[in-house]
């Protein structure tokens, strides 16, 4: 038990009235969470078992697990889920590796550290819509990339349809995801790196350890908690991706570049299938929860 813990447990200030005071201060936050988080979740869970109608005087019939079965039998939902997993599998490690690399480089320099931090962080604060439009221009058939490859460097005889087919379009979009996320990872990892005691590195140097050994045996184990945090947060973020696909491909051609959120949006507002979308969102939430639990098990943070 820590000293502060003992203080609060035995303090004369820690009494029933203080509990009430704390409770009262928590009430506004709780009201917000209940109204805007818990209530919608519960409501959506209920909706997922109904053929939910949105018009006046319309009865929403109970359909049991029909919406969930519809999701499982929907080939486009399968495509969307596969694309989302692909997006997560590429962007999460991509952002983390490059973000960590940037953090290591910035951590090792004495001058211009703030400048580099700012430059790496700039993509994070730019608008998703703007950079998505920019990437669409770069990767379009008559875009910048094809112009450089075919007309300037003449490396390829004719343009490549970067956005024309499913996997090329998904790959192009993941590059945007990685580019935009490096800065955020850099900041998080930089904070973690600066918390690693210098004495460890000094002791390792005395023992004759090289830079690579120091990285694998000192740096990585000491930032394991941060790696877990980034992995979980980025995975959740990847499953919540919407804008880049909506702007760059719009799910085209023939829904082959849909991801779960764009497909959910389409089903909700174009097909008005509220129950289906609610079921899909719960299944996706379940998948994210399972991934998070597995990551916590695998990358359990052990205090050194």
């Amino acid at each position: 038990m820590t000293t502060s813990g003992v203080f609060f447990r035995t303090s004369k200030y820690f009494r029933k009235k203080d509990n009430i005071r704390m409770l009262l201060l928590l009430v506004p936050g709780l009201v917000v969470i209940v109204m805007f988080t818990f209530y919608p979740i519960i409501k959506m869970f209920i909706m997922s078992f109904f053929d939910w109608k949105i018009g006046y005087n319309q009865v929403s019939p109970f359909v049991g697990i029909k919406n969930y079965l519809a999701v499982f039998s929907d080939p486009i939902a399968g495509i969307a889920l596969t694309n989302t997993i692909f997006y997560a599998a590429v962007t999460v490690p991509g952002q983390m590796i490059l973000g960590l690399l940037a953090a290591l480089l910035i951590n090792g320099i004495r001058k211009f550290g703030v400048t580099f931090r700012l430059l790496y962080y700039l993509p994070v604060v730019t608008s998703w819509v703007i950079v998505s439009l920019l990437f669409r221009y770069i990767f379009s058939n008559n875009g910048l990339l094809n112009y450089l490859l075919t007309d300037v460097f003449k490396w390829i005889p004719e343009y490549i349809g970067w956005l024309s087919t499913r996997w090329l379009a998904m790959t192009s979009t993941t590059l945007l995801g990685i580019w935009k996320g490096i800065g955020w990872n850099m900041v998080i990892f930089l904070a973690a790196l600066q918390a690693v005691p210098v004495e460890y590195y000094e002791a390792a140097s005395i023992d004759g350890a090289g830079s690579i050994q120091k990285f694998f045996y000192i740096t990585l184990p000491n930032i394991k908690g941060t790696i877990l945090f980034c992995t979980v947060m980025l995975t959740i973020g990847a499953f919540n991706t919407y804008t880049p696909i909506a702007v760059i491909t719009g799910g085209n051609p023939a829904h082959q570049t849909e991801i779960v959120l764009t497909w959910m949006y389409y089903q909700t507002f174009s097909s008005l299938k509220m129950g289906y979308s609610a079921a899909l969102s719960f299944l996706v939430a379940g998948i994210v929860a399972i991934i998070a639990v597995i990551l916590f098990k695998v990358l359990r943070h052990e205090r050194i």
Partner: protein
Amino acid sequence: MKKSKILLPILISIFLILVMVLSGCPTPPAEEVTEEVTEKEAEPAEEETAAITEPVTIHFWHNYDAGAGQIDVLDQLISQFEQANPGITINQVYLEWQGLKNNVVAGATTGMLPDVLRGDIGFVPQFQALDVLVEMDTAFSDYADAADAVLEAPNSTAKAGDHYYGIASNTNTKILYYNKDLVTTVPTTLDEMWATAEEVSSEDVIGFCEAWMGGWNLCQYIWSYGGDILAPDYSTATGYINGSVAVTVIQKLADLYAVGAFSGPTIDPGAPPDTDGMGTGKYAMTIDGPWKAKDLSAKYNDLQYGAVQMPAGPAGSIGVLGGEDFMMFKTSDAIHQDAAWKFIKFMTGKDAQVEMAKVGQMPVNKEALADDEVLEAMPLLSIFADALQTCKARPVTPKWGDMEGIINTKATEAVLGQKPVQTAMDEAAAEIDALLQQ
């Protein structure tokens, strides 16, 4: 001292809760605000106040094109209407096509719907199925008079079942636009058009472009070749969307795509959008509505383009009827509905229709269509007028949006060569039949 320790958090909590709850409350209906303002402002001028029996604000959602100058004209028209109808204020809100639909979908649940909406003719059966639209032909005794003033065919799009749930705002269909530098011999038949598309295609040019592959884009070819999408009684799609005519049409498009003579931004997300592609000479031909002329003229002044009626198939040149209708919602009370109806009649009247024609909206008002100013403002009007004689409306069913989505997906798969055309369209027919049976 002890009391104050408890009292302070209580006061803070109450304050924060009130702030959150009140900020979550909707703003007072605009008409209430208007009432207050109008009363205050009207105090010095008693004569005017007498005319304002019940000040009311009408919320009007629309998708008039700001880029084409339509919203500027709308503002002027609203100003005219408000001057002619003291006490009625129009609060216009622009929403793009999908946003308009999404907001009505959301509003159907919350009850926050406008008094008037001007939206795609395809919205009428969809919104009517949500049971949110006013049955206008029974709600207003002079509906028949207002409907008489507009063209019958466009106004038929506002009918669902036995009643009218809207009135036509403007109409359109599609014609062939072609780049004069690329297309020297203008095709008059669809077969000639496909052949021209192949001839003019090269490494830098794609002969023909379609912006999408739904019914809005495919119906015209299938109809013109003598086929259809659904059975006339909407009972089935089998034998129609997967019939020999539809399959032949889509096979033709697939063949053209395979040789680089056909594309579009939804078939290939890397391809330029249709207007930009036409404007930059990437696409040689496209079939589109009257807005295309405005878009091309506004963005690509140097482009030399021509326009003719859509080339004919064996069954003729049968385009797709498009356009927008005015709709009203049940959420409005009688006072708002009356004021909204006044506004709709004004917007479908000759003067407003002439002004809108000057910024690219094809009138439905019969008098406006014959007006010299309209003829001068719309050089392509005669071509569209001819095309309107033979065009057809898409199936009027609440499920049409879903059907279009299915057609787009399956036809795109076929054109991309991912599935044999017959297989893809058989799948489309089966999915549409399942929708029809619901």
